[in-house]
């Protein structure tokens, strides 16, 4: 009978799921019933330096334990004594019982990373990184955190500290915050290292930084008619863009935010078969049309186009005939047109 452990990695305080196997062999071929016991020790080679009571027991062929941090004496566990006894079906006990000593090292810090961005991780805007950390067998105050960041261009880059970082309610945990204001789009690689009493944990992560996308006309009132249909204009009506989705130039605008700007709008009106006329000065999100200004039965096309800071002043890549337009040939439209029949 022998004790086997397949995992060659060192065992640390606080490790979970450390597994041992019993190698069994009865010369008579009788089935063997096993009894495992695990003891927390300081010096496992000295039986008196182990807890009297095992912290885990089992009668299965394999034995899985969670390594405790402290002994019953409230001192750190420095080693484990794993004992295995066997009895065959006829009551013959294995001689001698098997024991193995497992050194236990200082538990490494554990880290948890989270990332938030108010601006959908657009380059040039702050990304907040939160690193929550603790240590299974030491105070979080014993842990030092280093955050290394590598931009896509592999240039040297330094993060800034985030002020007023909220702390976890669990006193065994602490949290720091960093701000990444990415200067370029692409994958920014992070390596967060926690060190406690010479033991390290390194957690890699990636921040995908994007470029500012064109704005999307998301909600309009009245609803834009589908192809072939026209909106009856019965009363004076306010045609308004209610929502523009954009990382930095959205509508309604977020006042007081240093990174946000309001969306830019351009409006135009086409009467019947006439030429489309720009509504000069109409830069708000709404235009009102009064049927009394037109002739009943007249067909109008009222068009709105949305621009952000990157696209303002540039014509959209669609012909005048196209009622809608998207810079990126997806569902995000920068141009929409109401076909209207004056009633």
């Amino acid at each position, binding site marked *: 009978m022998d004790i086997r452990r397949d995992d060659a990695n060192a065992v640390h305080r606080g490790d979970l799921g450390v597994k041992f196997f019993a190698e069994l062999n009865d010369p008579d071929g009788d089935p063997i019933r096993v009894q495992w016991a695990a003891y927390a020790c300081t010096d496992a080679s000295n039986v008196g330096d182990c807890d009297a009571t095992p912290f885990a027991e089992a009668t299965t062929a394999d034995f899985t334990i969670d390594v405790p941090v402290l002994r019953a004496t409230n001192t750190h566990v420095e080693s484990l004594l794993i004992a295995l006894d066997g009895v065959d079906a006829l009551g013959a006990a294995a001689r001698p019982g098997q024991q193995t000593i497992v050194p236990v090292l200082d538990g490494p810090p554990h880290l948890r990373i989270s990332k938030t961005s108010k601006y959908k991780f657009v380059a040039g805007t702050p990304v907040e990184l939160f690193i929550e950390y603790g240590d299974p067998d030491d105070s979080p105050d014993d842990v030092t955190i280093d955050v290394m960041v590598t931009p896509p261009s592999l240039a040297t880059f330094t993060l800034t500290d985030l002020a007023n970082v909220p702390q976890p309610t669990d006193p065994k945990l602490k949290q720091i915050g960093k701000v990444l204001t990415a200067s370029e789009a692409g994958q920014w690689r992070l390596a967060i290292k926690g060190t406690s009493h010479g033991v390290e944990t390194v957690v890699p992560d990636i921040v995908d930084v994007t470029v500012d996308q064109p704005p999307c006309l998301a909600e309009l009132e009245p609803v834009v008619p589908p192809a072939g249909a026209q909106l*009856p204009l019965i009363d004076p009506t306010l045609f308004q863009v*209610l929502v523009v989705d954009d990382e930095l130039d959205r509508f309604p605008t977020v006042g007081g935010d240093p990174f946000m700007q309001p969306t830019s709008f351009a409006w135009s009106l086409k009467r019947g078969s006439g030429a489309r006329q720009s509504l000069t000065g109409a830069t708000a999100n709404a235009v009102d049309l009064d049927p009394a200004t037109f002739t009943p039965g007249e067909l109008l096309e009222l068009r709105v186009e949305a621009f952000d800071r990157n696209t303002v002043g540039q014509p959209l890549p669609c012909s005048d005939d196209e009622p809608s337009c998207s810079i990126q040939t997806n569902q995000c439209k920068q141009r929409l047109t109401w076909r209207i029949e004056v009633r």
Partner: protein
Amino acid sequence: MRIAVVSLMLGLWVGCGAGDKNPIGDSDANAPMCTASISFLPAEAVAAPDTVIRAEAVVDATGVPSYQWFVFRGSAMVPFDLAATNDVITFSGATAGTYDVFLRVSVPDTFCPEAHVQIEVREPGAGQSPFRIHAIAPANATNPAVSSTVIVDGGSTDTLPDLVMPKGTLVEGNLVANSQPVAAYLRFMPATGRDAAVETYCGVAGQYSVMLRSESHDVLVIPFSSALAPRIVTWRPGMTSLAVDSGDSITGTVRNSAGAPIGGAAVTMTIAGVPATIGATDANGRFSIQGLVVAGAEVVVEVTPPASTGLPRLTLSSTSLDLTADVAVQYAALTVRDVATTLVQRGTTALGGATVSIIGEALANVGTIGGIAAIGDLHVVVTAGGNGRLPTQLAPARALTAVVEAGPGDYAVAAFDLTAGVPATIASPSMIASTTTIIAPGGGGLAGATLDLVPRSALARAGAPTVRLIANGAGTVNPRLANRADYDLRFSDPAGRGGQRVVAIDNVTSGLPASHALLPATLVTVKVTDGVNSLAGALVQFRCVGCAGVDRARAIAEGATGIDGTITLAVPRP
């Protein structure tokens, strides 16, 4: 005995109103039901050291109930006194704000839903103002828009009851006429809030698909075919088909003062708020339109003659117009003049190519419709030739107005009185450059504040658009105003540092005052939910109550809810 109760069940409370939700679960949902609600006094409380709020349990159940009370203001628990019978509590209303009162009722072998009420305690001296709150769910949500009237209490802040946007139901159906599919525009107006209308269209297959609240709707149906009469029909949950037909034929004749027919005149009619089809007179001046005649209903008729006639549009609003008989439209004898000799100029420079809108409003003695005196209005658009002179165009010999657009966005308004003859010139001065600073109620320029120049009267009738200006870092804007025009100046701040101010200016001849202060504001917070979960990204607009026309749809303040479903907006302090 004064009690401040801590409950571990805070996270399960959803505040859906009295007696309609069990946040704990439905394990006893098969038990006999009871109803529980909370009544409170005073109905309108004002914060003061001696203000006491009394809440009483109103329970209908078989058995002896026991009560568990909880009171919060924001996230803070509020201590209360419990009556000996436990069904009444009192607590201090010394601090203004919104108080959430929860009541748990336990009756043996009976299921009692939790009751919840929100009690507003106003600041002393604060007024109240009604606003309409209009909310639209995020694009991919299934919650139809809501529109309701709320009362905002004055003071620096106010919290409204949660705004609930229930999930809708996808409604699919067919629009038919004599069993044939009909293409049309549809506007579904909920019975509980017509402003929260949902629009959709039927294609040639006559099919519609729309997300609606589970309640009756009035549906305005406007078929694209001129052979079918528009109408309002009632839709109720479960209906899968709407029907229209040709309605009633309404006929008439349009003649000039000499009795000669006027061909090519457009005729529109609205009966009880529902538009009829559009008609045009033939060479004999005859028209025929389809509508639904409703005895005694208000009828609005508009007759627009060809621009070449120089005649004004006739408008009549009446409840005594007989639509069952031929409608006779008769122009009065009007003197018309040809404006071809008029020169459009700026100073002494002719404005070749200028667009001129000739406008007349509320012109009397211009004609009758069905024997009833109609009002006239005029809007014709001409373009000055290269020499600045107007082309041939007839117009009534009345006191009219000319709106000149010398170039894109370059407007001027001028009197154009044809009563005694045709004026030799129309003066079109340059727009008036102006500077004004938008300042906070307590002083200081507001960077990022906005000024909307909203045209009124003739300038609006000429189609001039609203111009929005954004203040620079010092809070300054530089508006250009059309000479002699009327405007509404709407000063707002997206950052909520003041309430919107609207200033009406008429007959502009000089620049604006050096500054305009926003109104003191009340920061109003509201949470938008679907009845269970908060709705992030919902658009919330505060709109005016009692206003008409497009102003009804203008936002006083607007924004999108955050990830917790709440939004705080600044409205003018009541």
